[in-house]
């Protein structure tokens, strides 16, 4: 049987953080991989973050001191493992301003969205319904709905973005006009354009018209305050590995009342109350959605990552990264022949760009030899690139350890790169 689930602590009113600004050069020292490679500039945190020692220690300590399966054994070690695992769930809930029983562990954002599609979507959507997505979704926000739409016969609609990379909110009225939209899937932070989307406004609009809202927060959870209630989300997904946690663990948060109505999507151990040969009854929330032995250490590691983020202060992180990103945008825009993709009002800590005459693969390879790690390709967002008339782009993305010196090195290397290939 399941251990009692701690409730997420109520949101404490946020006081202004009067500590001095974060110093990325000092924070670098908290990342063993970066500390061991002082000349290496890791500018690919939007793909996956490097891991601070606090997270690596938590993983190591769990396996050394607390490892057992959860929700099963009655001996003290099993109780310790269960307490660590459920404690982690409580910490995630607190981090999101949610209840612990609303937090479902998954393998990551992609699996979280697939869970919503295969459970809520399969039970709720059919011919005559529509799901509204944005033109800047990551493939993970598109493909699960394409698969289900082909099977269930509902319509997919798209909210386009403009030349600056902002969603064209004035089109919402027309998209909702026939009353068929049941769900809006929106990425909180675009992984290509950098746009931070006004999820609160979209959610208010959708709710007035009876639609639910699914937020892909993979690119925002590591960088700013994400509170599910103030966003107005009904579902929210994020990945541990983009938030300084381990790979293979992620979260689906959903409103309790919704989770109650949703059928399980995978069957197995831990998700059942009782099993007869022909029929079973489902466990309580959130275990109904967690079949099989979970990534216990991953959950513990993710909680350690969120604790580490909170110890730095999420507002301080947002402030430091905002200033660093503004600096990077200025430096990159000044590189001759470089075009930034998107000029959103509010930009997350990343900048994708096209360097005239040089293919993104060649840009990334050139920068790689200079000790600068950037991503090249379509970043799992082919429709965004197609809309911009590109097949691919290069992208530099930032984290708490990114320094202005690294941005300077990037800008200077890009100038040399263009010369090399032209």
């Amino acid at each position, binding site marked *: 049987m399941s251990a009692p689930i701690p409730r997420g602590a109520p949101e404490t009113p946020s006081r202004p953080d009067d500590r001095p600004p974060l110093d990325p050069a000092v924070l670098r020292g908290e990342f063993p991989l970066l500390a061991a490679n002082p000349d290496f500039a890791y500018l690919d945190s939007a793909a996956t973050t490097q891991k601070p020692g606090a997270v690596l220690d938590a993983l190591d300590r769990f396996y050394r001191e607390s490892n057992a399966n959860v929700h099963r054994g009655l001996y003290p070690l099993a109780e310790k493992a269960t307490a660590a695992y459920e404690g982690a769930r409580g910490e995630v809930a607190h981090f999101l301003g949610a209840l612990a029983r609303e937090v479902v562990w998954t393998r990551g954002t992609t699996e979280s969205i697939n869970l919503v599609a295969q459970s809520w979507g399969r039970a709720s959507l059919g011919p005559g319904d529509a799901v509204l997505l944005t033109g800047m979704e990551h493939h993970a926000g598109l493909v699960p709905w394409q698969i289900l739409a082909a099977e269930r016969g509902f319509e997919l609609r798209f909210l386009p973005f403009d030349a600056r990379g902002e969603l064209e909110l004035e089109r919402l009225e027309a998209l909702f006009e026939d009353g068929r939209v049941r769900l809006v899937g929106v990425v909180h932070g675009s992984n290509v354009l950098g746009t931070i989307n006004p999820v609160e406004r979209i959610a208010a609009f959708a709710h007035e018209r009876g639609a639910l809202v699914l937020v892909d927060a993979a690119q925002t959870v590591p960088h700013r305050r994400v509170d599910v209630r103030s966003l107005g989300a009904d579902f929210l997904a994020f990945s541990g590995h983009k938030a300084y946690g381990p790979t293979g663990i992620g979260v689906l948060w959903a409103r309790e009342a919704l989770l109650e109505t949703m059928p399980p999507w995978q069957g197995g151990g831990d998700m059942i109350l009782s099993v007869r040969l022909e029929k079973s009854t489902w466990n309580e929330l959130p275990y109904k959605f967690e079949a099989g032995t979970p990534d216990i250490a991953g959950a513990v590691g993710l909680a350690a990552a969120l604790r580490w983020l909170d110890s730095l202060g999420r507002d301080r992180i947002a402030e430091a990264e905002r200033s660093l990103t503004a600096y990077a945008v200025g430096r990159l825009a000044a590189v001759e022949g470089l075009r930034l993709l998107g000029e959103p009002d509010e930009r997350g800590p990343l900048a994708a760009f096209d360097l005239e005459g040089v*293919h993104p693969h060649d840009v990334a*390879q050139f920068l*790689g030899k200079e000790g600068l790690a950037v991503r090249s390709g379509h970043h799992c967002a082919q429709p965004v690139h197609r809309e911009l008339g590109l097949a691919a782009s290069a992208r530099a993305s930032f984290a708490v350890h990114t320094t202005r010196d690294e941005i300077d090195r990037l800008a200077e290397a890009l100038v040399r790169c263009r010369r090399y290939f032209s």
Partner: protein
Amino acid sequence: MSDFDELYQEIILDHYRRPRGAARLDEVPEGEIHENPTCGDSLKLKVEYGPDGRIARVLHESRGCAISVASASMLTGAVAGLVPAEALSLAGEVEAALRGQGDDPRGFLEGNGELAALAGVAAFPARVKCASLAWRALESALAPPPGTDRGS
């Protein structure tokens, strides 16, 4: 020579800057457009035959990185004058060599004229797809539709 310098040898950069056989190929059917799934790059390729059934020339329209454009450009020189069966066999061998397979992949490329410049690709597994794209397109262009005879 560093791995990077071997990858981007002057001959690769020369083929990238002035690709041989580059053309606008609007008439190539949709199914003959080859895409690199890692970056969405695309390549169209057209084979023209001489009266003797040999490959007279290969034209390509490449949207891609230096490695994929240079590989397509070098392909046009490497297969001109071959009968389709020879070109198919060469394509298979080049692809295997790019993946580092076979007895002596480097030796094979180095024994094939300008293709020697592609020997550096094997050190960068992520770039093998870039270098292989044109050769895969060639294989598809040479595989004759059932019931036709291209006179090889």
